[in-house]
């Protein structure tokens, strides 16, 4: 039965996440925007709280909650056989991320124990690895100076040496790289095999071969540290290789990329949270200034600012529903690669558009550091870039709709 509301059973979870955002993230928002690279100690108390919740309803404030289409049963609601559908952790995680990023995107990104690497582990690790890495904060190291969106062309190598792999290369833009317990590093075990040779390795942060090179200074999401690493003869035990160690030219890379079908809707959710913060604030400012937002009257009859608000809200709603759709499909094990990219593309570009136009409409109130609107419009930009830029999402969608390979549609 078609219903696009927030699931009733997730309402307590969403309200909890909103409370955390309101009471813990918002008040520290500006503080860590200014004190870049300083560890937000306020978040430590959240770690145990979130871990406790995860075993239950899947609070999953970060990316760790989603895994192999993990769809827990329908909570208190009737079973899927009766209702014909499942609402699982992909959807609940997306919804709680929206709330958390409404609080602060940078702080959500540096939530202890909730790294992107945790998603990769959840998606491809075996039982033994899942147990061993449980509770570890895992960052993800993919990007290199010469390999951004074209992650298939990474140059970091992993050479087998007895029970170990020896990793050499350089990794940039590693979110939470300094603060995490482990880093999931992408490296090629057989460069002659191309993308099929790419494997991911769990590297402990204290491994002497994993050297922190520097922390970046950024446009936004400054509460979250972005590290660059040099891997120099970094020895990693073979048991830390995630997934199939064999080089198979028929699949291989696809397996690594699968992670993204689950995480793209979550980045879309971040953009939704950040831009809803701006939209909520803009609504308050407009209302206080005496503008009434009337959904029934044609926008041509309303003040320009109200018409613009409705236009922005429509894009926001579109992005929300595309994101919920992609997450719902993952929960119900429907192939969602196109839909995940559609959600990410729409939420990413709308996020930037909404936050920037909110600043424009709010004037100096929006542009000044006295309020957070200017910060949200800086934070939102990254969400149209990481986990696949706008352009990469459009490529993924187009290739699948048009039935084109990456060599045909470049």
């Amino acid at each position, binding site marked *: *039965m*078609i*219903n*696009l*509301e*927030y*699931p*009733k*059973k997730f309402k307590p979870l969403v309200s909890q996440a909103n409370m955390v955002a309101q009471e813990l993230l918002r008040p520290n928002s500006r503080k860590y925007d200014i004190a870049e690279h300083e560890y937000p100690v306020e978040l430590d108390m959240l770690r145990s709280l979130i871990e406790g919740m995860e075993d239950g309803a899947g609070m999953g404030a970060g990316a760790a909650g989603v895994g192999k289409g993990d769809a827990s049963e*329908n909570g208190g*609601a*009737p079973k899927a056989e*009766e*209702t*014909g*559908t*499942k*609402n699982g952790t992909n*959807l609940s995680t997306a919804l709680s991320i929206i709330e958390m990023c409404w609080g602060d995107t940078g702080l959500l990104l540096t939530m202890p124990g909730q790294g992107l690497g945790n998603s990769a582990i959840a998606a491809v690790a075996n039982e033994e690895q899942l147990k061993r890495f449980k509770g570890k904060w895992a960052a993800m190291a993919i990007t290199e100076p010469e390999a951004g969106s074209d992650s298939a062309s990474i140059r970091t190598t992993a050479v087998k040496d007895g029970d170990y792999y020896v990793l050499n290369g350089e990794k940039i833009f590693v979110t939470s790289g300094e603060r995490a317990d482990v880093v999931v590093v992408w490296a090629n075990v057989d460069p002659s095999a191309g993308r099929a040779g790419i494997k991911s390795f769990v590297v402990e942060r204290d491994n002497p071969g994993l050297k922190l090179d520097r922390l970046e200074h950024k446009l936004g999401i400054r509460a979250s540290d972005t590290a660059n690493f040099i891997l120099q003869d970094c020895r990693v035990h073979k048991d830390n290789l995630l997934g199939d160690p064999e080089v198979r030219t028929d699949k291989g890379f696809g397996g690594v990329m699968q992670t993204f079908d689950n995480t793209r809707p979550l980045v879309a959710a971040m953009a939704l949270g950040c831009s809803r913060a701006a939209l909520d604030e803009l609504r308050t400012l407009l209302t206080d200034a005496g503008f009434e937002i009337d*959904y*029934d*009257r*044609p*926008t*041509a*009859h309303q003040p320009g600012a109200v018409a613009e608000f*409705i*236009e922005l*809200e*429509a*894009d926001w*709603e*579109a*992005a929300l*529903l*595309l994101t*919920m*759709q992609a997450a*719902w499909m993952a929960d119900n094990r429907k192939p969602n690669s*196109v*839909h995940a990219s*559609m959600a990410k*593309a*729409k939420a990413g570009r709308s996020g930037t558009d909404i936050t920037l136009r909110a600043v424009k409409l709010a004037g100096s109130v929006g542009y000044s550091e006295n309020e957070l609107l200017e910060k949200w419009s800086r934070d939102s930009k990254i969400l149209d870039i990481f986990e696949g830029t706008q*352009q990469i*999402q*459009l*490529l993924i*969608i*187009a*290739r699948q*709709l*048009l*039935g*084109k390979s990456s060599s*045909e*549609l*470049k």
Partner: protein
Amino acid sequence: MAPNTIEKSPADKGMAFGLRALNRFASSSTIDKLKLRKPAEKALYSTTKGGFKAAGAVGRQFTKQKGDKPARQPSAKSYGLFDLTPTDEQAMLTEAFGDFAQSELKPIAGQADHDCAAPAELLAQSIELGVTMIGVPEELGGAVEERSAVTSTLISETLAKGDMGLAVAVLAPAAVSTALGLWGDADQQATYLPEFVGENVPAAALAVMEPRPLFDPFKLDTKATRNADGGFTLTGVKSLVPRAADAELFVIAAELEGKPALFIVEAKTDGVAVAPEPAMGIRASATATLALEDVKLPVESLLGDADPEVYADCIRLGRIAWSALAAGTGQAVLDYVTQYVNDRVAFGEPISHRQAVAFTVSNIAIELDAIRLTTYKAASRADAGKSFARESALARQLTATKGMQIGSDGVQLLGGHGYIKEHPVERWYRDLRAAGMIEGVLLV
């Protein structure tokens, strides 16, 4: 010489004179007398002005009936889960109307657009499929047990995937039966609804639009005044009313005592006149202007007790319906251009190998899904008895902007080929302009 005046040379002046002369020649009747103008250039409807005829020429007399109490479709029971799966009943209906759209609407869409009419046989088939029964409560012979905005949305979408103009023609009477199902009192339902679930369903239309720029459905120029006998007098003009020339029954929006309200108007009533009003698109729906001059109505013609919320819901449900049509036509655009850009070769390879082309296709897919999902959400809230003013407004906003963009991109991707009638994209371009603009006409 002033910087902004353009000095004309004697040669320029001569050319300007020549152009004026050419224009005068072209507009003179002489060339017609000489039979120089091609017959095809004669507009199908060139005499709109003064072309009004009394409405309801072939219409039936509706006999007033007494009812017990009004019947309403109840809301379906919900598990409160996010779900995009239609019910079995919805899936079945969507498949049946989808087959109808693809096998009956799509093949004749171009011709019907040209003729400004839907074939009678096709309209009869749509009645057989039960299109006017969807919004009618079951105890009055309706086809669907529960409140059915989502069902109507899915049917509208799938019909418009075949053709929007024909979809409007098919759905126009359903708007009237749905209005009676939702807001009719017992007598109104007993008088009119049996006709919509029988064999000989009347053509009918819901008329809201008026011919003026920046039309606001909440500020109507059509006025209703109360008569001494308790009845009403209606005066005004309604625009783009589908199948109005054949319609036997109208629901008409008019301002009563400062507030917009809905009236049931039988076409045979004195003072109701119709003139063809062909438009840019949705031409198969035979759009017409409806003139109301001192139309005297009985007291029982007021629909929904002049409740402002009833009227607002009528406007909102209409907007949802038009968004559903945009989703259907948008899907037709996406399917068509996907094939075309793969087949069309330029510079030695399919044009789909170019990002500028491929990304346009991606964006059509994204915004199309956005229109579809926001429309479903608005409709499902209506079914659940929740407020849906915001949701219908947002769906309409996307329909007006992104829906039109999809229509425009559809033509653009075919280039010059998109501009000629050999391909349907030019028709979709014209039709999609209607979807985010027209008020009323349809209801989900």
